[in-house]
């Protein structure tokens, strides 16, 4: 049975690159254009995952474990971030009955 890196290598590296780039761009566009805080949050996750995918692919192709370590770090940080971020969004919703970021402009001068 092939081990995981070999399975990954059955698809050319370029595919991974293009795919994660596309995912990342979709995430960026989502963050920039959407007004719903939860969707923006999901788009951020999308970007993180795009990066994770890229790191994993490169790790497999380059036979370097460092990148995979990074992936675990990113996952841990993302989990913590979701925890904090979601609670902020919930609190915001309780206060203004909305998760529209356009309405959240209290942090100005």
């Amino acid at each position: 049975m092939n081990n995981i890196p070999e399975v990954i290598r059955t698809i050319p590296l370029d595919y991974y690159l293009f795919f994660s780039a596309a995912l990342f761009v979709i995430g960026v566009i989502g963050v920039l254009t959407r007004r719903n805080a939860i969707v923006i949050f999901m788009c951020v996750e999308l970007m993180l995952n795009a990066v994770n995918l890229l790191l994993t692919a490169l790790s497999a192709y380059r036979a370097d474990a460092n990148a995979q370590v990074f992936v675990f770090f990113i996952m841990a940080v993302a989990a913590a971030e979701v925890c904090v971020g979601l609670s902020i969004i919930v609190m915001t919703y309780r206060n203004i009955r909305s998760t529209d970021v356009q309405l959240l402009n209290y942090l100005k001068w």
Partner: protein
Amino acid sequence: MQEIVMPINNQGMALLCLLIPLLPLAGFIINGLGNRAIAKGLVSFIGCSTVLASFLITVYLFLDFTANGSRAYTVDFYDWISVGDMQIGFSFLIDQLTLLMMLMVTGIGFFIHLYSAGYMSHDENFGKFFAFINLFMFSMLLLVMGSNYVMMFVGWEGVGLCSYLLIGFWNRNTNYNNAAKKAFVMNRIGDLGFLLGIFLIFITFGSVSYPQVFAEAAQYTGGVDSGVLIAITLLLFVGAMGKSAQIPLFTWLPDAMAGPTPVSALIHAATMVTAGIYMVLRSNVLYVLAPTTLEIIAIVGVATAVLAATIGLAQNDIKKVLAYSTVSQLGYMFLALGVMAFSSSIFHVLTHAFFKALLFLGAGSVIHAMSNEQDIRFMGGLRKYLPITFVTFLIGTLAIAGIPPFAGFFSKDELLAHVWEHSKVLWGLGVLASFMTSFYMFRLVFLTFFGTFRGTEAQRSHLHESPFSMTLPLIVLAVLSTVGGFLGIPPIFGENMHILQGYLAPIYNFARVANPRAMEPMHLDHATEWMLMGISVAVAIVAAIIAYVMYVSKRTVPVPEGSRLSPLHNLIYNKYYIDELYDTIVVRPIMWMSAIFHRVLDNMIVDGVVNGFGKLTTYSSRTLRFAQSGAIGFYLMVMVFSIVLILFLNFFIG
């Protein structure tokens, strides 16, 4: 060739030497710290007794010195400054000249302290006054006793500081403070010259210690009148000009009369102002190697003597007359130095210290009796009320006018004889100054003590002879002014009768080696000497008679303030407008320039830059706050585009 002066090994003597300056310093510290807490009686006791003790130790030292064959020695205490090649020790040089100056400083200093105890007794800052004059004694002794130029400079600055403090002693009066500042600034100009001179000495001879410098100079191979020696001597002379009030730095001394009268007597007549002469005399080796400088000194000296004497003719303030007379006499001393009559110069320093201190103290006694009136136009007839002051003041006048057998006659005559040998023109000017000296001094005496009283009724009822503590110094100084001249009896009255010259001879040892021709003794035949003596006495007497006719027989009184004067009289009365001239060419341009710098450089450029940064920060933050819209979408946009930009830059630049 004399060997280098050896340090003394005797611990006891070293301690005694150290005590001489330290005792007044202790007096300064005690009186200074306890300014108002200590009772006046105790203050004056501490002030006077410390100086008296110094004087007695000096006398002992002097006797010991002469008993042991008059061999100069140094007293080394510790290495003071030791950097690279530079070794400056804290040590004293005890030789003939030092001892003479020490005796003069402590002796006259003591009597002036005693006088001050009476004169200043009504002053609220009695303790402060005694602290300052004790500090002055300390600095002056350091100046005189130090065995290198750096110690001399320390003392030099110390006496300058005390002079400043004491001129501005009554510091509630703005004019007095201005006089103090003037003295301070003018002295700083001179001190710059002195300091540069010391640097140049160190560069040239590799040392600042007198014995080493002079030994080096005696073997100096650059020859007479080499550039560097002229530079050194001229720079030192600039320092002397400031301290000893020579043209062009003399205008501070008359203003210095703002200080209490004992200060005028001690500092501005007898001791500090002669520091310049002491310094030139101490450096006699350097000066005999630079005859050009000496020529300049002689000219500056005689010019000062004549100029100050003419101003003295028309002054109406009793202390101002004496002040100009001091400037004039200091001019004489420099004239003597200029013609290499070194011993005559120090002789005149000594006799001048006696009679000028006496005159100032006498003037102080008059001012004391007149309830602080200093204008001789409002005096007159005081001889009946102040008999002791009158007699002593008259003795002082006779001495300064050069009438035999008083002290001034001997020193001035000897001095002028040397000048005659050197140059007839300088001699003529010297005699002219002597004529004027005699005239204005007798004018002072006649206006003050003769005729009828011209002051107010209140002043008349208050007239009284001064207390004993004030008259005793007057009497002692009068005795010294009478007999002081016998220290230097001229050769025509007997060979080798000139005690002072014989005594001081060893200090010129190096000079004799360095420039043997310069140090040859005077060779005037006796007839010429008699003639010169006759002329100077005749001149003094004629001037006195003219003054008598004008101010006693004709009862002339100087015109009151504001009346019209002849142009020449006006010019002299206003001191040739020299203060105004300095004001125009020095003070005002500086004020003007500083005003410009203040307005342009400081207010516009410096303030503009500093305030500009502040304004820039406020303005930019005021503008940038609009970027903080609170819209999260906008923030994210900025963030993303910034990241893209950074990546782009990284790609193209990195």
